[in-house]
C-alpha cells in the first residue's frame, strides 16, 4: 500500500490531490485511485471534477506515481477504473498519450466485454491493468 500527494495548479488555485495504491483480496494486486483532498475534513473525493486546466499534468503525475510504486513493488498488478464513464475515458486518453513510453516498461491491458485484452489506443475500455515487464 502506498499513498502519494501532489498539487494541481491552475485557474482555480492549488488543489491538493491524493493517489492511493490499495491492497485488494489478491496479494500483489493493487487498486489505483486518486482524488481531491478536502483540507478541512481530510476526506478524499474521487468524483469531483476540478476543471483546473491541468489534466495533462495530473495524468502525467499519476503515471509517475505508477513508476514510483512499481519500483518498490516490481511484480505488482495495478488496476484502475474511473468513477464515471467520462473519467474512465480520461484515463484511456492519458494512457494513450503516454503509451509509447509506458509500453517500454509495462504490460498494459484494457477490460472490454468482460475480458482483458492488450491495450490498444482508440478502443474504449471499462478498466485498465498494468504490470512492470
Amino acid at each position, binding site marked *: 500500500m502506498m*499513498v502519494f500527494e501532489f498539487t494541481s495548479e491552475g485557474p482555480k488555485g492549488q488543489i491538493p490531490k491524493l493517489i492511493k495504491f490499495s491492497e485488494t483480496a489478491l496479494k500483489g494486486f493493487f487498486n489505483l*485511485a486518486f482524488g481531491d483532498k478536502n483540507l478541512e475534513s481530510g476526506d478524499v473525493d474521487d468524483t469531483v471534477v476540478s476543471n483546473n486546466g491541468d489534466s495533462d499534468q495530473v495524468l502525467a503525475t499519476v503515471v509517475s506515481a505508477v*513508476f514510483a510504486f512499481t*519500483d518498490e513493488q516490481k511484480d505488482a498488478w495495478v*488496476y484502475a*477504473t474511473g*468513477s464515471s464513464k467520462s473519467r474512465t475515458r480520461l484515463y484511456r486518453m492519458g494512457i494513450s498519450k503516454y503509451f509509447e513510453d509506458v509500453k517500454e*516498461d509495462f504490460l498494459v491491458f484494457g477490460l472490454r466485454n468482460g475480458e*482483458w485484452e492488450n491495450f490498444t489506443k482508440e478502443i474504449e475500455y471499462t478498466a485498465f*491493468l498494468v504490470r512492470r515487464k
Partner: protein
Amino acid sequence: MKTIKELNDKKIPIVRIDNSLEKYKTMPIFQEKVDKANEMLRTVGLPKMAPK
C-alpha cells in the same frame, strides 16, 4: 527502467517522503473502488499471459 533515485535525480524531485501521509494508509478512502476491483477479480480474474 527508471528508479525512484533516477526520478529524484531530475532537477525537480518527483517523489519526496512525507510521513504525514501514513494516516491515509489505514483510512478507508476509495474503499468503494477497492470493492469493485475485488468484484472484478472474482468475475474476470487476471489476463491470460504467456509464461515468462
